[in-house]
């Protein structure tokens, strides 16, 4: 029972877009015979869709993507049965067991903030809406504080951009998905995480290792899939307001119209701003607080999304439109002393982005269905880092068509084809400063040096995937072939996933797969423009790597109402070809080049989660993680810079019986990292640091109030900028960030549902 209701928001990742009818009979044992059970409830776990058996115990139920794959059969006097419907299963014969202890009360467990999906063949961590409400979670970048799997750090001391890491590799190697469609790629890499407001999201699913071939050839280290709130479950009107003591404010409004049983529209709007110039970090020449640079840029963001859902028995259409515009202004404080020739070292960044995603599913027959996915992004980025400016536009288009056929019970075949078009136009302009153009001609004052880059690639591909599943064992094998027209290179991507139930409570999972990636060097390393490093490019190519992973998850019952779970995982990534961003050859340069030299990343993680009080009133999570991530730089196999080998995490979630009061405390320890060549302006390795957050939530009928503190100890990297006093000089560097740049923050927010909760 506990496991059945382990989460209230399970979303099916493995079978994302198909809709089909499953039928069967429900019977109960009486003596030696099975007698049909009429009027038993049959429903998909955690959904609105369900049915009842007829006089003969027969039922048929439609399975849409939103339904997940767990069917619950319930009838008074019998034990509830939850069945995982595997691809290919139909004509179910369900035999209910008589509930011998009728008066025993079974507790339906409260939604957990964070759990491990037990039935998926891929190891998956799920952060639910409850988890997102445990911290301020203003945007996607801030939503991983309770996750041991994903690390988030500041990219530089100027722009406020955040970077993620998974398995000891930068977030570029993880595939960010919006409802299983490729999402934050290309130009969205530097700031994209900040464009997903926390209130929009219903859940985040994190899976490590390579994913199914259906989703493409990318995603080496893992996948982060986000789901927005849906018309079926969203509140009629949701208003979120947020304010912190740094004077950042934010408003989110989500309006939901459920027009009829099949059709719904949800509108999302977000506005946030931070408009104060603040300079506490670093020291000036007189050793006073402040290095003359704003700690955080002034910013304004407006963000809108709309989604239209149509779902009936045969057909599913989901269309989502998104639009984001953001302005950031930072760099030197307006009262700093300007450089005689170049003025102030200013930072600005303006982004406009529009996106459309469409997902359609159609049931062809009882055993086959067809699904299509389309996505298109237009993005325009204008940014200036002191003497350099970088403008870029991106257009990309994605189409994926998937046919599914159930061959026989437990066996499914997927066939499909995909097409990607990516176009990026970039221009990098630089003021004629000697260190930027060493040995270059002498430019007259006022001119700039402009370098143009253009990249257009078309990537057609085909794939096939075979799934075999029974109660104890699942094996998924897939193969895809893609061709990149820019590099004129074929990509052959095999991927395998397996799941074995070792015992009733223990699950073993494995994965093996290859992945490719087509890099965009400047956009992906835009934070390095916050330094005087000269960008030196060599030819780029496709990155090519293998990933292997093994996981074991076990749940023990402490007593009737409490459990303890252990999850242990190992992953290894080996690169065959990689874009090296060499920060070590010189502290004044960055070299980009392809390398097939030795490069790998090993990752081990242990996560323990236990109930200290029954009824999930106090859940404790402990996690530890070790990375050994190395690459060959100029002949030496050395640790990747900015990758922390160690991370420890402790999360306490405490609530009262009715869940009207809740306290969440997050404690983290981030280990030290190897720093790149700074010509001894910084040590070669940084020190680790702790980080504590706490939040208290009070829930009323139509209102929730939350207040919290982030970075309670105020642990900060005190000297984030190297040579801050000479920003136009050759040794200036604001990209060597290994600690927190966020001062202790007190915040308060409300979530208001004026028309009640759904």
């Amino acid at each position, binding site marked *: 029972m506990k496991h059945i*209701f382990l989460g*209230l928001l399970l979303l099916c990742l493995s079978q994302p877009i198909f809709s089909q009818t499953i039928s069967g009979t429900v019977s109960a044992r009486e003596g030696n015979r099975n007698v049909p059970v009429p*009027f038993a*409830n049959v*429903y*998909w*776990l*955690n*959904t*609105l*869709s*369900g049915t*009842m058996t007829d006089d003969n115990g027969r039922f048929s139920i439609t399975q849409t993507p939103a339904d997940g794959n767990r069917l*619950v059969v*319930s*009838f*008074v006097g*019998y*034990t*509830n049965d939850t069945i995982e419907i595997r691809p290919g299963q139909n004509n179910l014969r369900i035999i209910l067991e008589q*509930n011998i202890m*009728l008066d025993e*009360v*079974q*507790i*339906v467990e*409260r*939604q957990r903030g964070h759990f491990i999906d037990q039935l998926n063949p891929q190891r998956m961590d799920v952060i639910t809406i409850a988890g997102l409400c445990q911290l301020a979670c203003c945007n996607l970048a801030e939503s991983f504080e309770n996750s041991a799997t994903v690390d988030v750090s500041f990219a530089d001391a100027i722009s406020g951009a955040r970077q993620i890491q998974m398995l000891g590799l930068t977030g570029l190697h993880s595939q960010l998905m919006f409802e299983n469609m490729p999402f934050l790629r290309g130009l969205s890499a530097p700031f994209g995480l900040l464009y997903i407001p926390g209130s929009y999201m219903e859940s985040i699913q994190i899976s490590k290792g390579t994913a199914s071939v259906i989703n493409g050839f990318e995603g080496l280290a893992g996948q982060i899939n986000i789901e927005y709130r849906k018309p*079926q*479950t969203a509140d009629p009107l949701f208003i979120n307001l947020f304010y912190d003591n740094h004077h950042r404010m934010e408003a989110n409004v989500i309006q939901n119209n*459920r027009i009829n*049983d099949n059709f719904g529209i949800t509108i999302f709007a977000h506005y946030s701003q931070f408009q104060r110039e603040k300079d506490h970090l670093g020291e000036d020449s007189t050793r006073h607080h402040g290095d003359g640079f704003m700690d955080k840029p002034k910013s304004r963001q407006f963000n809108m999304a709309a989604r239209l859902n149509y779902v009936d028995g045969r057909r599913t259409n989901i269309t989502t439109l998104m639009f984001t515009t953001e302005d950031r202004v930072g760099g030197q404080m307006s009262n700093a002393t300007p450089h005689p020739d170049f003025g102030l070292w200013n930072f600005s960044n303006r982004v406009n982005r529009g996106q459309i995603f469409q997902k359609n599913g159609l049931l062809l027959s009882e055993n086959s269905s067809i699904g299509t996915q389309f996505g298109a992004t237009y993005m325009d980025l204008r940014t200036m880092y002191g003497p350099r400016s970088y403008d870029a536009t991106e257009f990309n288009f994605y189409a994926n068509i998937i046919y599914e056929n159930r061959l026989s019970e437990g066996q499914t075949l997927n066939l499909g084809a995909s097409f990607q078009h990516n176009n990026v136009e970039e221009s990098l302009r630089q003021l004629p400063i000697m260190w930027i153009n060493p040995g270059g001609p002498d430019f007259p004052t006022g001119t700039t040096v402009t370098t143009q880059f253009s990249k257009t690639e078309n990537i057609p591909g085909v794939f096939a995937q075979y799934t075999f599943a029974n109660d104890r064992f699942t094996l998924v094998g897939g193969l895809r072939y893609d061709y990149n027209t820019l590099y004129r290179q074929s990509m052959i991507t095999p991927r395998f996933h397996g799941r074995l139930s070792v015992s009733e409570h223990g699950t073993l999972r494995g994965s093996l797969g290859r992945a490719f990636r087509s890099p965009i060097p400047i956009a992906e390393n835009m934070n390095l423009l916050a330094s005087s490093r000269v960008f030196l490019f060599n030819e780029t190519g496709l990155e090519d790597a293998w990933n292997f992973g093994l996981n074991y998850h076990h749940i023990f019952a402490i007593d009737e109402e409490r459990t303890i779970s252990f999850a242990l995982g190992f992953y290894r990534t080996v690169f065959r070809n990689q874009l090296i961003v060499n920060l070590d050859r010189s502290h004044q340069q960055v070299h980009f080049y392809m390398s097939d030299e030795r490069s790998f990343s090993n990752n081990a993680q242990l996560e323990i989660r236990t109930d200290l009080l029954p009824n999930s009133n106090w859940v404790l999570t402990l996690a530890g993680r070790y990375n050994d991530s190395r690459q060959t730089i100029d002949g030496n196999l050395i640790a990747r810079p900015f990758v922390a080998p160690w991370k420890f995490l402790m999360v306490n979630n*405490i609530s*009262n*019986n*009715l*869940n*009207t*009061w809740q*306290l969440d405390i997050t404690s983290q320890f981030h280990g030290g990292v190897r720093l790149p060549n700074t010509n001894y302006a910084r040590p070669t390795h940084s020190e680790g640091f702790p980080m504590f957050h*706490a939040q*208290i939530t009070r*829930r*009323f*009928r139509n209102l929730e109030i939350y*207040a919290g*503190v982030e970075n*309670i100890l105020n642990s900060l990297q005190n000297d984030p900028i190297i040579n801050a006093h000479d920003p136009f000089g050759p040794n200036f560097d604001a990209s060597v960030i290994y600690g927190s740049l966020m001062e202790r923050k*007190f915040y308060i927010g409300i979530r208001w549902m004026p028309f*009640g*909760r*759904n």
Partner: protein
Amino acid sequence: MKKILLAIFALALTSSVMAQNRNQTVTFFLNYHCSSCIRVIERNLPHERGVTNYRIDMPGKSIEITYNPRRTNPNNLRQALIRLGFEVRDRHEDIVNVAPRRCS
């Protein structure tokens, strides 16, 4: 700041524990349909005046509500469940033939 928050929280916990001494319980039988019904209860029932705890038994089709008799009575609780769209019965056998709650 942290201490204040902790104190408030401790107060909230202890007050709810102390209140339980004089509390009473009532059991209703409901026409549950699916887990969305559970969600509706979880999100609304805690905010009904006088409710101090509740346990849902979905296969048994029942809910056991603990309440403070000075602040509410079983009839108020019954009305609250009806407002959430449930049919409410006092006996197990009476709910068996009632159509499940409409969820969408």
